[in-house]
């Protein structure tokens, strides 16, 4: 009897000493010299900043995040931009650019989040999708019947848009393997139907989510990260909750590798090691799950509450050729075409270098910029481009439609018209904006993304003023048309910000920099 009790007690003690929990090594000391890691990152990672602030306390490593889109990020890294590390939804785009890939150093996956569909609860119920598995074919069929409308980012600028495109095209192709150029041709018809319900586009997932909230009555849903949808539901700013639809035949998942650049200094590489070790600690992984609704990378850490097990992962095309084929097909065949009015200041102050810069930047969209992002900024097949130069009054608008069968001659004609612009006279910004609205309202073929780009280098001093323009927008019937002002020269920043705000557009700053880049980035919203 006594012996049995003793044996049991001993066994209990010894076992306790042998369980992995008890034998675990003390946590590694991750402190070290104070260091700042300059990281080029995807915009959705802004929600990691509170966790990174604690990382700085624990490790001495301060993270300085600079946000950009996935494709543009890959291009910056390829061009040799001076950062210590990159942190995007995935390294896929970086790995497809040989010059970017060669700069990638050690990498640690931190977390993941699949790209899925968030639908207003009432829409999900109406479609009968609230409590059952739904396939991409069903989603595409309902979209082509316009049973719902959705927001999605531009695949050429942002990972969520590209992931959605890959998923819908792969699932509909149904061959069960990575898409190649031939498969893209096969699926163009049903995928084209899917995009007829695409009602809002954007260059960044963050902006898209913000606009979805602001325009909640116009749109039924959006394709974005599961984590962003959970955040939208938690924020309490939506009139009704979003039902998260996980397409049953598969998704594309972002896995957020935090990757130090191979040419970063030793101190940065050490900082990266300390930071990633800390971020991959079990407690921090659990917190990332709870605070950001991303899935932990570390096996054994439980999924954040309410998230289902990982869905099937669709294969992601691996070759640059298939990536290009997919984006080209999207731009020229699959997507809803756009109509954009370029309202261009050619007043006297634009004379000289400024008009030369404007002509060069805008001409970049006619096929002369051959960089990867430049290639996908070009005026696309089927697109309407309206040039509306102005000085003391709006001048005659010139409309061009890029020919679907033979695009380059149309682009050349646009370039000739840009080349003929001449500067002189005063600045009638608001009369010209109103003229742009009128030309959009008068146009035939309404099923397009419409927007206005306003490029001006100074204050309006002719015709109607901002108050009159506000009045015009408030009384205007029909769908919202966003205005995207580009700040240039001595542009009136305050007024332009207001113009963007009341039209649900956004300003782009090219005062110190790159007009070409501003024109290219706006393309994601057109």
């Amino acid at each position, binding site marked *: 009897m*006594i012996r049995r*009790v*003793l044996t049991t*007690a*001993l066994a209990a*003690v*010894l076992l306790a*000493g042998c369980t*992995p929990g008890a034998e*675990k*090594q*003390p946590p*590694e000391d991750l402190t070290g010299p104070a260091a700042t890691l300059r990281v080029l990152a995807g915009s959705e990672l802004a929600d990691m900043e509170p966790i990174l602030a604690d990382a700085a306390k624990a490790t001495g490593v301060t993270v300085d995040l600079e946000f950009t889109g996935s494709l543009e990020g890959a291009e910056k890294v390829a061009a040799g931009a001076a950062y210590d590390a990159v942190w995007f939804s995935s*390294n*896929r785009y970086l*790995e497809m650019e040989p010059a970017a890939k*060669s700069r990638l*150093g*050690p990498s640690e*996956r931190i977390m*993941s989040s699949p790209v899925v569909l968030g639908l207003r609860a009432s829409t999900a119920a109406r479609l009968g999708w609230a409590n059952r*598995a739904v*396939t991409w074919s069903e989603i595409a069929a309902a979209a082509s019947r316009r049973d719902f409308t959705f927001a999605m980012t531009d695949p050429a600028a942002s990972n969520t848009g590209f992931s959605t495109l890959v998923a819908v095209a792969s*699932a509909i192709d*149904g*061959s*069960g*393997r*990575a*898409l*190649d*150029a*031939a498969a893209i041709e096969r699926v163009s018809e049903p995928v084209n139907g899917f995009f007829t319900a695409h009602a809002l586009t954007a260059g960044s997932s963050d902006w898209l989510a913000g606009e979805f909230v602001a325009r909640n009555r116009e749109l039924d849903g959006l394709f974005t990260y599961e984590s962003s949808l959970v955040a939208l539901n938690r924020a309490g700013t939506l009139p009704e909750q979003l039902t998260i639809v996980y397409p*049953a*035949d*598969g998704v594309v998942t972002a896995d957020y590798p935090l990757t130090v650049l*191979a040419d970063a200094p030793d101190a940065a*590489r050490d900082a990266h090691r300390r930071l990633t070790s800390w971020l991959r600690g*079990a407690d921090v992984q659990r917190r990332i799950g709870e605070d950001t609704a991303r*899935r*932990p*990378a*570390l*096996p*054994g*850490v439980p999924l954040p509450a309410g998230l289902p*097990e*990982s*869905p*099937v*992962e*669709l*294969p*992601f*095309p*691996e*070759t*640059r*050729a*298939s990536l290009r084929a997919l984006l080209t097909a999207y731009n020229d065949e699959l997507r809803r075409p756009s109509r954009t009015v370029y309202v261009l200041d050619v007043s006297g102050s634009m004379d000289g270098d400024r008009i030369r810069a404007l002509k060069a930047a805008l001409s970049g969209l006619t096929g002369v910029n051959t960089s990867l992002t430049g290639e996908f900024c070009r005026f696309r097949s089927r697109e309407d481009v309206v040039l509306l130069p102005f000085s003391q009054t709006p001048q005659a608008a010139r409309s061009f439609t890029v020919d679907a069968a033979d695009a380059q001659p149309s682009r050349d004609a646009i370039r000739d018209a840009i080349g003929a612009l001449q500067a002189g006279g005063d600045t009638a910004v608001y009369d010209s904006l109103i003229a742009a609205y009128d030309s959009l309202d008068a146009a035939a073929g309404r099923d397009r993304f419409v927007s206005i780009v306003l490029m001006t280098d100074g204050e309006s001093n002719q015709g109607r003023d901002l108050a009159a323009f506000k009045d015009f927008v408030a009384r205007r019937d029909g769908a919202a048309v966003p205005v995207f002002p580009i700040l240039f020269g001595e542009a009136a920043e305050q007024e332009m910000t207001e113009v963007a705000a009341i039209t649900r557009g956004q300003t782009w700053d090219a005062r110190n920099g790159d007009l070409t880049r501003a024109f290219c980035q706006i393309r994601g919203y057109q």
Partner: protein
Amino acid sequence: MKALRTIALLVSVILVAVVAWAVVRRATASGDAPAAAGCAGARTRVTGVIGSEKTPYLNDPRVLSRLSCLGLTLVVDAKGSRDMVNTLSDDAHPYDFAFPSSASTAERIQQLRGVNDTYKPFSSVMVVATWKPVVTMLRGAGVVTTVQDRPVVDVDALVGLARAGTRWNQLKGNESSPNNKVVLLRTTDPKDSGSAIQFVSLASAALNGDRPVSSAADVAKVMPDMCRLMAYQGTKEETSQDLFEQYLSDGPARSPLALVYEQQFLDTTSAITVPRDGEHVMLFPNPTVYARHTVVPFTDAGDRLGRALDTDENLQALAAEYGFRLDGRALTDRPEPPVVQEPPEYALLESMLSELEANPSFDDTTGKCAK
């Protein structure tokens, strides 16, 4: 009553003694303890570039402290094999040693850096990490078979399914699954990773009638299928550690079959271990290959590190704890795989890899790899 109190007293005395003993034992085991007599005084920093699968072992504080006792302060960077070779092509590379997982990568590095002597402190077998229901399903499809009383994944049969374009939800008993993907073994990217190189070794042998490819004609014969197996997967993980973590954290929907190192599966020491729930299953592919982890030293410090890993009892015991196989020691805890292939000759392996590294796609109409 009295007897009970005596027992209780006795038990608590023993408890205290045992706990005290455990504490002392742990303190002496740690390298910081004064008991670490005979440790070297001076420390030399030794920097290496390693395959990711060895990161947990080489970061273990006990390994680091044992090395420290031997006079070495170890700093490692994990890299895929292609990256490793690229980095080491630069004469200004900062490393004292490289520690790839395959003999062929080691050979390439030896040639590159003019190194003769290497150390092979331990090895692993390539295995398939899978799931209990998947095994049942694949047995029905003839992919899981029994060889020498052991369940194995028949690589030839698996390739057959891919060739026929068979999907997971076409397998008997799995018709209601949403997984409409072609039945494939997940591998890492041959551009980056040593474990994908092991896959090329074993799959090319399976496709060559269970013999290592030994001529350019053999290579030409097996390449269309090799290409298909890589291209159908789309983008692949860069490191076996990432693939293994995904297998563990994302479940059977995402990773029904993944090629990993046996050591990763058997490791019971790392933060990342396989739950013993009966759901996680490890099978040998048939045939399989050995991954011979090889230290290629470039400096004296690198040489000391290689020798220490190879000969130090303490470090060898820790390697065994991490699931590695030690050469020349009886393995009572694990079986030998039924069929093991030698890797093909270096030049032939290289020619297959370089074709696969060009990101080929598979062309159905011609039945060939296309770039």
